[in-house]
């Protein structure tokens, strides 16, 4: 690993730190924040990777303009019947909890769009007549842009296995000191997959009724996952003061507030990184980055022995 900036956090920073940038609502500036923090951390001398886990709408590449050096498909396992071995007993249709298998007059029919790749049918078929074959559901790209290691996943159009592509993106990540995960919006299975291996979560919101409502859902999710989290308030001077009041009541730190600045919207529209085209914001992000690290140090327990779960398995849903 490369050199470390800011000596005081060294023991803590011996562990790579993974921060998920999420938001209940889309369009709150999540990507802008994740990109700016990644660039800020890199400028502070850390090795940084940015993982674009918003695989339905990945946009990070627009700002990093990365040189992609490798690509591979994200695969999920799909069962297939070896006809010669199958006796048509129908067990597999009973086993599948998602009705992805029907056995009609001794013929096994598999509906790929319902299968979640749980592996039960192939494991439990009494005749060992089901094998799993891999099928691509998206792509993963790895590269470097603006001094930051870059990985993104792209879900293929018409596919629904979003979490499988996210798992593939995380699997392609390196061991940089700092990892920023740009998560999909919402609170459903895709976000859970993106957030579950992070050490801390940044929730980006804006102080409008929609923003606040969706923030409360994101808070509920993050609490359920038992992750430490804090809030970034974007366009803080827009809307009303209810979001700030909510954060105060719930004891949620607001680590960074960014004004409703038309120049930020314009830079975003052109696909330019905020801290690069508007240098006056660079110190704002440097301050926020230091606050964030100090906060992480207080919140995240020294890393325990991680729960020994097999990371290599396809996590799909």
């Amino acid at each position, binding site marked *: 690993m490369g050199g470390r900036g800011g000596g005081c956090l060294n023991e803590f920073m011996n562990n790579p730190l993974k921060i998920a940038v999420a938001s209940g609502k889309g369009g709150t500036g999540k990507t802008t924040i994740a990109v700016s923090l990644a660039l800020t951390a890199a400028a502070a001398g850390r090795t940084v990777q940015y993982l674009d886990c918003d695989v339905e709408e990945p946009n990070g590449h627009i700002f990093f303009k990365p040189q992609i050096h490798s690509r591979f498909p994200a695969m999920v396992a799909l069962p297939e019947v070896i006809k010669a071995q199958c006796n048509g007993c129908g067990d597999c249709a009973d086993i599948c909890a998602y009705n992805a298998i029907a056995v009609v007059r001794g013929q096994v029919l598999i509906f790929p769009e319902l299968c979640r790749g*749980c592996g039960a049918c192939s494991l439990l078929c009494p005749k060992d007549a089901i094998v799993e074959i891999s099928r691509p559901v998206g792509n993963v790209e790895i590269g470097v842009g603006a001094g930051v290691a870059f990985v993104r996943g792209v879900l293929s159009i018409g596919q629904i296995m*979003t979490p499988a592509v996210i798992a593939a993106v995380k699997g392609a990540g390196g061991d940089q000191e700092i990892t920023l995960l740009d998560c999909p919006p919402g609170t459903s299975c895709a976000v859970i997959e993106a957030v579950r291996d992070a050490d801390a979560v940044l929730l980006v919101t804006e102080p409008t009724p929609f923003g606040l409502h*969706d923030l409360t859902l994101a808070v509920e999710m993050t609490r359920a996952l038992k992750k430490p989290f804090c809030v970034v308030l974007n366009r803080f001077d827009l*809307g009303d003061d209810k979001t700030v009041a909510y954060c105060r009541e719930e004891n949620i730190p607001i680590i960074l507030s960014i004004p409703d600045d038309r120049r930020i919207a314009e830079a*975003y*529209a052109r696909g330019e990184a905020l801290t690069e085209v508007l240098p006056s914001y660079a110190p704002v992000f440097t301050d926020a980055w230091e606050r964030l690290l100090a906060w992480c140090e207080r919140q995240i327990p020294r890393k325990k022995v991680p729960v020994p779960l097999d990371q290599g398995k396809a996590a*799909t849903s």
Partner: protein
Amino acid sequence: MKEIAVISGKGGTGKTSLTAAFATLGGKKVLADCDVDAADLHLVLHPEIIREEIFIGGSKAAIREEDCTGCGLCAEHCRFRAIGYSVTTNGEQAEKPIINPIFCEGCRLCARLCPVEAIAFEPAESGRLCVSGTPCGPMVHARLGVAQGNSGKLVTLVRQEARTIAEGEACELIIIDGPPGVGCPVIASITGVNLALIVTEPTLSGRHDLMRAAELTAHFRIPTLVCINKWDIHPGMTERIEKEARDHDVLPAGRIRYDRLVTDAQVQRTNVLACGDSAVGEDMKAVWRSVESALSNQ
């Protein structure tokens, strides 16, 4: 009866504000909030809930500690990494595994494998479905429990309920507020609709996401319109997106200017058209006229 879905590749493009404005226009209609992951339409339409139903999306597994022998078979085979061992503060791993319900997808594999039948399997509430009345007509909305999968199934239920109501009350139109993205809840929201309206913004990200959403609607052969919100933030990009959209047989339905009134209306918990005459309101009405004529041409 016809169905129109308002979607957006990217979130936060003003889709819900536009849907709320549409709700006040035109004839009898049913509103369906299919953004079940982050349903916001109710915040501005003030629905009075008439009926609420529990939605069971699936079942969850749980280990009965007293019966478990700690053989580890279940943890070894769960593909969703839902089964693990807690670790005590001095770094020791517990003898028996536990199931984290957030990650459990209810595939039942663990329960079938467990040699001593120590795993119970219970249906779990994963959301609520509500049928409500609003000043603009009946509305069906839902709330997916946090950390729940199966949003596609809940979206399908919302749409079924909306259709039943539309038939019962002789409504001509269902307006669907769809989720962002191109994944399973979006697919569930648009399959079989008569028209999709993609709301986007004149940014590089907006353009990229619009193209993906347009590919999705093309994949399902759904006639599609696009509307550029806050078009005046970047007029050049607006032109470019509209041209590219045309090349993909997606017709522009109009442009909506940037106006803080849209946010102000939201803060006042109402829709733009209820805030008196405004240029941005006229823009929205013009988009609605394009939608109506596209629907009647079918």
